């Protein structure tokens, strides 16, 4: 079935077979720009021992002294920087995929940063219990790590269920409900932790998330991000349940009359939003090794910005999972590019804000062009 054939809102699915090609072009352009103008960097050469420890490589100079060996690399286009870029993108991108689901359904989720914080701190308490200084330090990591993972994903999903449940039962706009739960979830996180940072997790868990391949590349967050995006993409485009989300967001009343259980669809997207906040929290806990109630402040706006840059329409019915990932990547590339190009950081917010607006304008222009093309085609075939 061609997804564009009967899509309720047209938009992303209409007029083009690959709606993200514009974003991909932007990413390639940014990559080229940063590779050419970013210059090169000298980095100490590192070597990994068979036991996994990394150390610097030295050579003996003419006067018999040991000095470190340096390698010259392109500042942007090198494996470490690209892996870093992927890792930094992953936390937001994972949540942006589900934010895209919510936005396609015509809703909005302002509580995602707070869900991330609450999942983080509660799971951190479980992980700490099974950590080296915890009461359950003697317990097998095969029990401790799954318990922590379950806590993180479970809390996230539960928060999503609370959001979705209140939205469908109280029939209040998601903006209001999630504005309220944003404060409640963060408040609960604060009360539980008393504002303290929680660390000291089982080393197995840390090693699992920080697992490195090749020259110290940490690819687990990247792999999870790709997995979530692929799963989200397949669900949206290849499954009937996914298509119902477009239908609800495109025209809720029409969807209801056509027999779609709108409440169930809305509940499912908020459930997924909570779950992905939990997934992002797991990665953050494993990678950074601690959690506080202040984690994820303002992430809701980053996530929504990524979805919007990725082609979401805030009026619903439009967007793709891949678009969310690419939107997050564009924003992160700009943020990293500011460091690579040595631009004064004071300008970063202005640049990122401008990019969000330009992306939306370009998307609207693209849509206008597509509609014009369709109109011209229709005119050409009509007698």
């Amino acid at each position, binding site marked *: 079935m061609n997804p564009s054939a009967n899509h309720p809102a047209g938009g992303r699915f209409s007029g083009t077979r690959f709606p993200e090609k514009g974003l991909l072009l932007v990413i390639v352009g940014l990559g080229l720009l940063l590779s050419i103008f970013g210059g090169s960097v000298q980095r100490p050469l590192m070597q990994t021992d068979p036991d996994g420890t990394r150390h610097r490589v030295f050579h003996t100079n003419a006067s018999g002294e040991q000095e470190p060996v340096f390698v010259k690399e392109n*500042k942007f286009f090198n494996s470490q920087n690209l892996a870093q870029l992927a890792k930094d993108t992953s936390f937001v991108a994972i949540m942006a995929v589900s934010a895209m689901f919510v936005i396609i359904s015509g809703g909005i989720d302002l509580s995602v940063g707070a869900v991330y914080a609450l999942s983080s701190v509660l799971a951190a308490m479980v992980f700490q219990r099974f950590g080296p200084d915890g009461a359950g330090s003697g317990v097998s990591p095969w029990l401790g790590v799954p318990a922590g993972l379950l806590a993180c994903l479970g809390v996230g999903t539960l928060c999503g269920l609370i959001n979705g449940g209140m939205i469908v039962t109280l029939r209040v706009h998601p903006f209001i409900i999630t504005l309220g739960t944003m404060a409640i979830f963060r408040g609960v996180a604060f009360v539980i932790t008393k504002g303290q940072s929680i660390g000291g997790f089982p080393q197995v868990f840390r090693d699992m998330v920080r697992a490195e391949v090749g020259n110290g590349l940490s690819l687990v967050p990247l792999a999870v991000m790709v997995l979530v995006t692929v799963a989200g993409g397949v669900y949206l485009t290849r499954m009937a349940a996914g298509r119902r989300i477009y239908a609800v967001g495109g025209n809720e009343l029409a969807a209801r009359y056509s027999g779609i259980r709108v409440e169930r669809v809305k509940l499912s997207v908020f459930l997924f939003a909570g779950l992905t906040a939990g997934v992002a929290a797991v990665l953050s806990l494993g990678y950074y090794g601690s959690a506080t109630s202040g984690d994820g402040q303002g992430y809701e706006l980053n996530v929504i910005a990524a979805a919007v840059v990725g082609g979401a329409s805030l009026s619903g019915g439009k967007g793709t999972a891949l678009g969310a990932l690419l939107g997050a990547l564009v924003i992160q590339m700009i943020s990293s590019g500011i460091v690579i190009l040595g631009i004064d950081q004071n300008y970063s917010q202005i640049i990122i804000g401008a990019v969000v607006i330009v992306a939306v304008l370009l998307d609207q222009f693209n849509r206008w062009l597509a509609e014009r093309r369709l109109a011209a085609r229709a005119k050409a075939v009509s007698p």
Partner: protein
Amino acid sequence: MKNRLLNLLIVIALAGAFASVATAQTKKNYLIGLVAKSQGNPVFQAARVGAMDAARDLGQKYGVNIKIDWRTPNEEDAQKQAEAIEQLVLAGADGIAVSCSDANKLTDAINSAVDNGVPVATFDSDAPASKRFVTYGTDDFSCGEQVMDELAREMSSNGVVAILGGNQNAPNLQKRIAGVREEAKKYPGITILDAFYHKETPQDAAAKVEQVMQAHPEIGGWAMIGAWPLFTDNAIKWKPGTIKCVAVDALPAELQYLRDGYVQILLAQQVYQWGYHSTELLMDKILLKKSPPAVKDVSPLIPVTKANVDEFAKNWQKWLPK
């Protein structure tokens, strides 16, 4: 004759240009990353100015170019700080100075930077379990003790004291509060009512002071371990001198409260030195391979009173970003 003079001038100009290019090329470049807690806090802007001044002074002293790369989140976010450290290492930074929003979260990023040959110094807020070679700043527990000591003197060792505690998340503020409580034990006539927490914005802090004063009119003194409410014009409602107040930090907006007699003593942290001295320590480590004698490099607080406030205020002309 005229042509010969013109040729001579061109040759001199070209020689000058070549000489300056050659000097610039022979000078070695160093990049120091500066990662503070938040952009909006003026104390970190002063640290930034300090680091840039140090880069200029040390560059002249050692005949090198030093660039300060300021990578600070807009609002406190330890994850963003960790990302900034990782990005700075990849961008080829020679050293990094960081004020840690969450020590646990930054420890791995600091260790990774050090393992990659980039020395790290912490200032203001430390990551004690990390491989940083030095930490520079206020001893928070002593700071709390000093606040209480000065306040007890102002209150003639008698009365009810409230502590303004800022963000409950911040471990350094918790240590200051512990210092206040510990010092208060030395004064039997002093009672600590409680520590009152709030969002670290001037408006929230001023509102908290007002709420607490409404609920507890018996308060005779405020131990403000940060002077957040004093950024606003109208933070204090009591008559000057009726309630004693000692606060940490002495930013330009706060000095007027001292002049007007609402606040008796401001204990100034050496915020400009956070940047200046951290850069010095890093360049000593990078260029001279010299580590400080102790890992903890404590900077004392400077008491600012009505007597020396105008003299102290002149510092801010130098410390604020131009």
